[in-house]
């Protein structure tokens, strides 16, 4: 089980490295999908089934549709991909640096993180998670309202930023 | 103290509200100022007579040598207004008002600076005088170079005086007070480290640049040349003296232990500057620049007199500062009378003026003789006392000071002979005769100087 968790973590870092090497946006979006998926795995392995569900549904289901759409906006005839040597070298460099730091800084036998992997699978963490979700509607109500307000605000922000019929539709000039 | 501050403030209102029917605004305000000066004379003498704690308050006070400077300020400000009359005559009335308000605020800050007993208060006002002066130079100057001159003026002064602020704040941390009244009773500082020497320099360099010391004097000729006549007058007469005054205050109160050795290079520099700026004067063709360099030269003597720190040195510095205040101001006024007629500061263009302006030649004569320190004049008293104390310090200074005195005499006579004697150039035949206003101005400068011959201990300070 622990090997899976390590695999998820390595995947997390590798996916992020793909995002970071500045390929064409499709590849970055793909990297982000990988990161989100691996993140789900990591969270699940810590016992956060609801949190990982939220991540999976909202992130992969909602966000990446928008990104795919926007990648189309930024479409280019000759996308930069892993075929270019610079990108590969950059990627290898990033991963190599992270690997060196991992060897240097990860302590031996420190387990996974906050608590030991036996406890991770236990029932207590699941209970706290659902407790927390229900607290969101009680003591955390202020934050909920605040988030709703921010979402409304974002609506206006997006409207204002993209307003103006005179300036033409969404387009990309090559 | 309020006795002169309040009338000075009233002058603001006066300048703003007056509608001028019979007298011009300028004469009214100069009359007002002369009244302030008279109050000040009264108060000066009162102070000198009953110098006690009655007249001291925690922030403002008068000290034995202070009233002279306040008196000089109050005396010169009306003269500045009178001298600017021609310069301002073509301006609209609102600008005249602004100008007079500027001069008034300058007087206000100067009085506060001279009478502050708290060192930070002194510093604040020392800096506050920069602003009106800067505006006088850059707003009412004549040539485009005035902007550059204003920059030089502001940046030389500020770059040297910001370390002073830090040094004062450090002093406050050490002694717990910056009041001049209590500082003299605080324990002598234990200054031994290298940082303390830097602190000493920080305390003094602001004033040395303001004086100005040779080497840090470049702002002065520029500012003098570009400023209108009132700016040159106040710079030469009072603002340079602010540096001397500050040095006297600082060096007597707090810098004592280190000054003995550390002031050597500055004395040497000052005396070297006396000779060098004198030599520069000898080959000047710009009249205002010549007078400005002569100020630097005289101030070098003052610096030397203060830095040797003997009672005679201080008294000599005080006398020379007062006398030079009147003399250099008078010379700038005279240069301005030339400038108003010939529209040039060049000496070569204004020669032989005795033929057309004979009475003015008399004033030129007296002013030049005062500048070269002819025997009965207070200038000589000051120079002699400084020279004596410098010889007492080291006989070798005689070489520099003697050469300085000789050169001073030479360039003063050169200036007089070039401008007044000789044949009149043919392009100078349609000059205005000198006005009563100008004669009044010169009389108000030079008669006090002459009267001081008869009662010199008014400006002698400690030595009596």
């Amino acid at each position, binding site marked *: 089980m622990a090997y899976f968790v390590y695999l998820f973590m390595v995947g997390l870092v590798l996916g992020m490295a793909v*995002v*970071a090497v500045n390929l064409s*946006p499709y590849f970055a979006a793909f990297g982000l999908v990988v990161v989100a998926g691996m993140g789900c795995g990591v969270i699940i392995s810590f016992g956060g089934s609801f*949190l990982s569900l939220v991540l999976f549904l909202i992130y992969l289901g909602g966000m990446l549709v928008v990104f795919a759409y926007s990648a189309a906006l930024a479409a280019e005839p000759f996308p930069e991909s892993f075929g270019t040597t610079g990108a590969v070298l950059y990627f290898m460099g990033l991963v190599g640096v992270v690997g060196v730091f991992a060897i240097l800084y990860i302590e031996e036998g420190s387990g996974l993180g906050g608590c030991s992997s036996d406890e991770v699978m236990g029932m207590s*963490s699941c209970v706290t998670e659902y407790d927390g979700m229900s607290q969101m509607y009680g003591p955390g109500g202020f934050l909920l309202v605040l*988030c709703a307000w921010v979402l409304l605000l974002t609506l206006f922000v997006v409207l204002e930023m993209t307003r103006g019929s005179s300036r033409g539709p969404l387009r990309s000039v090559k | 103290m309020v006795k002169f501050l309040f009338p000075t403030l009233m002058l603001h209102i006066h300048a703003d509200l007056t509608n001028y029917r019979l007298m011009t605004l300028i004469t009214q305000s100069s009359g007002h100022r002369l009244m302030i000066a008279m109050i000040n004379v009264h108060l000066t003498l009162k102070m000198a007579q009953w110098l006690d704690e009655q007249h001291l308050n925690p922030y403002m006070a008068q000290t034995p040598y202070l009233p002279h400077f306040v008196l000089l300020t109050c005396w010169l400000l009306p003269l500045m207004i009178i001298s600017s009359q021609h310069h301002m005559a073509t301006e609209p009335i609102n600008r005249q008002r602004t100008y007079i308000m500027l001069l008034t605020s300058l007087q206000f800050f100067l009085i506060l600076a001279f009478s502050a007993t708290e060192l930070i208060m002194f510093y604040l006002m020392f800096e506050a005088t920069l602003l009106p002066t800067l505006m006088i130079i850059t707003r009412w100057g004549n040539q485009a170079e005035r902007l550059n001159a204003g920059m030089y003026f502001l940046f030389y002064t500020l770059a040297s005086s910001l370390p002073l602020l830090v040094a004062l704040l450090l002093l406050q941390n050490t002694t717990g007070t910056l009041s001049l009244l209590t500082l003299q009773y605080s324990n002598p500082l234990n200054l031994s480290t290298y940082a303390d020497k830097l602190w000493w320099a920080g305390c003094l360099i602001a004033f040395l640049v303001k004086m100005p010391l040779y080497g840090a004097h470049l702002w002065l000729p520029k500012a003098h040349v570009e400023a209108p006549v009132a700016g040159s007058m106040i710079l030469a007469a009072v603002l340079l003296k602010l540096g001397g005054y500050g040095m006297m205050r600082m060096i007597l109160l707090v810098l004592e232990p280190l000054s003995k050795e550390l002031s050597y290079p500055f004395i040497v520099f000052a005396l070297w500057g006396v000779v060098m700026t004198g030599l520069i004067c000898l080959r000047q063709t710009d009249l205002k620049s010549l007078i400005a360099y002569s100020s630097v030269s005289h101030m070098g003597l003052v610096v030397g007199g203060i830095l040797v720190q003997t009672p005679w040195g201080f008294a000599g510095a005080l006398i020379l500062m007062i006398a030079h205040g009147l003399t250099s101001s008078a010379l700038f006024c005279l240069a301005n009378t030339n400038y108003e007629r010939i529209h040039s500061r060049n000496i070569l263009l204004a020669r032989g003026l005795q033929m057309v302006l004979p009475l003015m030649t008399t004033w030129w004569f007296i002013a030049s003789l005062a500048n070269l320190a002819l025997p009965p004049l207070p200038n000589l008293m000051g120079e002699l006392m400084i020279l004596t104390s410098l010889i007492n310090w080291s006989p070798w200074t005689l070489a520099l000071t003697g050469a300085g005195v000789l050169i001073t005499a030479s360039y003063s006579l050169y200036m007089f002979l070039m401008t007044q004697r000789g044949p009149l150039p043919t392009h100078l035949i349609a000059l205005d005769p000198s006005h009563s206003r100008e004669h009044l101005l010169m009389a108000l400068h030079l008669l006090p100087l002459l009267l001081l011959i008869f009662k010199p201990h008014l400006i002698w300070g400690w030595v009596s």
Partner: protein
Amino acid sequence: MTPILFAFSSAFTLGLTGLVFHRVHLLSALLCLEGMMLSLYIALSTWSLGMGSASSSALPLFLLAISACEAGAGLAILVATARTHGTDRLQSLNLLQW
């Protein structure tokens, strides 16, 4: 340093590196930003799960909501930039240098 701490820290740092050294597409910069927020989400979730803290286990959801807002605003900016500059390339954003 525990593995999970290292994992999300390096993921965040990689995202930041991508954002800082990014010179091509505005969209890629936004994706990097999004990746940074994602790693913060993972960090927050694992922290609250690891600590067993009930009250902070809802925090990742708020983080996700706000970062979604941020992403939305970023996309709006992308559209606005595409309209005014004709492209989303970051090199074309050079009008303000003089």
